């Protein structure tokens, strides 16, 4: 099993590298290159900050291949340009530069979380993303859990009670919800539960009258004092965004689970299980379900990137303080480095999530472990 995980990890590295290289290439494509963008930060940053940044990223005046390689090394955090020659592989502390700081490595570039500064606010990109990551993770993880559990519950029940009223109803609703554009669904839900019914809050993550700004240190300390209240308030605010985010996925996957269960239930090994005298509950819940789970895991893994795309939509509509909304704002401001930072971080999260999905698949299906 461990060998399997390691093999999968190794398989991700090329793509990981690819994403990094593409980001680097994009950065170079901006007019004047990154140097110009950084130099243009005069209004937000002090001269020292600008110089330090240029040095951290090994930015050169020349444009030849060697210079590019140096810039890549600095930007990625492999090289330390405060040194010269082969010393560049080593950090100020003396260890190999690409290692984390606490292991003797450097503090520059991608590997150490140094993503530059926002052209709009001047603050470090790392800091800004860090503020918004909890919001997005809260939304997407809640959404993922809801999506999978509801789809499985509904799909399995519909498969077991095929052609019942529940089954037909579920099929009808899933057809309809599957086709609704997510952002339109969000808008309609806002109208329905906001001005019309007034049952649920329609924006933000906490009631601004009760709490300091979400993500700020003041918020976390206040939340620490009244954890249950914080939990409930956040929960109330999560309902509509999560529903919007997962409605389409639940609609599609519950039908998928149903089909997958029906397929499993028709297999010979289910017949064998019943011939052994096992109870229906065991036959369905153990024998059929375990096999029906396999395609679902694949499906969920494939849909993970769309969960993040959907988060962009949902965060925008519901004014949710997450990376997605920050992305849209950055787009509007042409906040170059912030955009890149968000892109990189999101891609990494998705790659990791895919790895986890692969491992889960290996756990569920023993045939995969040995290939």
């Amino acid at each position, binding site marked *: 099993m461990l060998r399997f995980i390691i093999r999968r990890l190794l398989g991700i590295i*090329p*793509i990981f590298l*690819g*994403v990094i290289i*593409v980001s680097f290439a994009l950065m170079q494509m901006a007019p004047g290159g990154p140097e110009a963008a950084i130099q243009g930060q005069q209004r937000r940053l002090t001269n020292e900050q600008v110089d330090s940044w240029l040095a951290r990223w090994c930015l050169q005046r020349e444009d030849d291949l060697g210079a590019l390689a140096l810039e890549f090394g600095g930007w990625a955090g492999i090289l330390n340009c405060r040194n010269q020659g082969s010393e560049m592989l080593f950090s100020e502390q003396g260890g190999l530069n690409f290692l984390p700081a606490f292991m003797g490595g450097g503090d520059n570039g991608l590997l150490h979380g140094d993503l530059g500064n926002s052209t709009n606010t001047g603050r470090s990109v790392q800091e800004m993303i860090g503020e918004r990551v909890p919001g997005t993770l809260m939304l997407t993880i809640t959404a993922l859990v809801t999506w999978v559990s509801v789809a499985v519950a509904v799909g399995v029940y519909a498969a077991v009670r095929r052609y019942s009223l529940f089954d037909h109803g579920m099929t009808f609703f899933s*057809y*309809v919800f*599957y*086709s*609704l*554009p*997510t*952002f*339109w669904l969000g*808008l*309609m839900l*806002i*109208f329905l539960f*906001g*001005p*019309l019914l007034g049952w649920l809050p*329609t924006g933000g993550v906490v009631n601004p009258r009760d709490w300091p700004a979400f993500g700020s240190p003041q918020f976390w300390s206040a939340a620490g004092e009244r954890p249950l209240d914080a939990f409930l308030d956040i929960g109330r605010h999560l309902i509509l965004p999560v529903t919007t985010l997962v409605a389409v996925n639940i609609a599609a996957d519950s039908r998928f689970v149903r089909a997958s269960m029906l397929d499993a239930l028709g297999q010979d090994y289910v017949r064998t299980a019943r011939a052994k005298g096992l109870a229906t509950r065991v036959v369905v819940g153990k024998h059929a379900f375990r096999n029906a789970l396999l395609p679902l895991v694949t499906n969920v893994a494939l849909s993970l*990137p*769309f969960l*993040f*795309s959907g988060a*962009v*939509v949902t965060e*925008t*509509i519901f004014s949710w303080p997450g990376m997605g909304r920050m*992305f*849209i704002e950055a*787009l509007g401001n*042409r906040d170059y480095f912030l*955009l890149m930072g*968000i*892109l990189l971080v*999101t*891609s990494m999260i*998705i*790659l990791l999530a895919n790895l986890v999905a692969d491992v889960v698949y290996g756990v569920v299906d023993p045939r995969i472990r040995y290939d």
Partner: protein
Amino acid sequence: MTGRAVDPTTEAVAAGEAGASQPAPDDYEVSLQPLSQMQLAWRRFRRHKLALVGSVLFGLMVLLAIFGPIIWPYDPLDIERVTKPGGNPPSPGEIFGTDSLGRSVFELVANGARLSVAIGVVTMLIATTTGIVVGALAGYFGGFVDSSLMRFVDLMLAIPFLFIVLVAARFFGSGDPLVLMLIFGVLSWPGLARLVRALFLSLREQEYVMAARAVGVGHLRIAFRHMLPNALGPIIVSATLLVANAIVLEAFVSFLNFGIRSSDISWGTALARSQGTLIQGNWWWPFFPGMAIAVTVIGINFMGDGIRDALDPRARA
């Protein structure tokens, strides 16, 4: 059998053994009627009620796209007096109400159809042709060609689609619908390429491919003349979904003002800036254009389902 006495029983048996007239075996046999693949598929599609409904819905939207701007031309100067900050609610004169500038939402929907549907279809065409070519080459040749092409595809698929689309639209788009179609098409083909590659990888093992090679048919001809028609089923289904996705994508991107310039009318630009009025309780402005999109997408999805079931080789007629 010699020396039998004449006996009705044995006489009858003898008559039977001599082959007297009997009921024709055909009455008890099952008769078969050969039909071509396409005829079978069409029959199955016709029986799929939802697919027919979907086709009708999509057809109506296409008609709207073609004739809408002709029957209800949009005049930017034809503005109603706005009585409320969010626009006028639906009334007998304006069945869809107006937006906050006084423009008729009905006219917006009728005119927006053209650009939105066009973007959907053109995006699909660009993405499908590119995706088929790349996927077919990768799946057919395998080996190095496959690995390099697929590494590239994997890379493009690792980055969230919406993020890349928005960046491209913001930095390369200029409000021009044609540029947007190109951007969407160019960014959508990797998904289809992956599908086509998987199909071709499995089709490659079929005997007719080996037979064609043995006779000396060239690679490209085998790939596109022999194998592609067999892969068409899932490709067509994916293509229809691409149309739906592109329409929704355009709507969202234009809604954020990163897409089509606001002076052009599409369902997306019709929705731009409409969110503010929702909180005030004015639902009609975002509702109707969005509804048009939803109806189109529902129609396309139903059609796609019908096509998928119709072309499924394992289904009975």
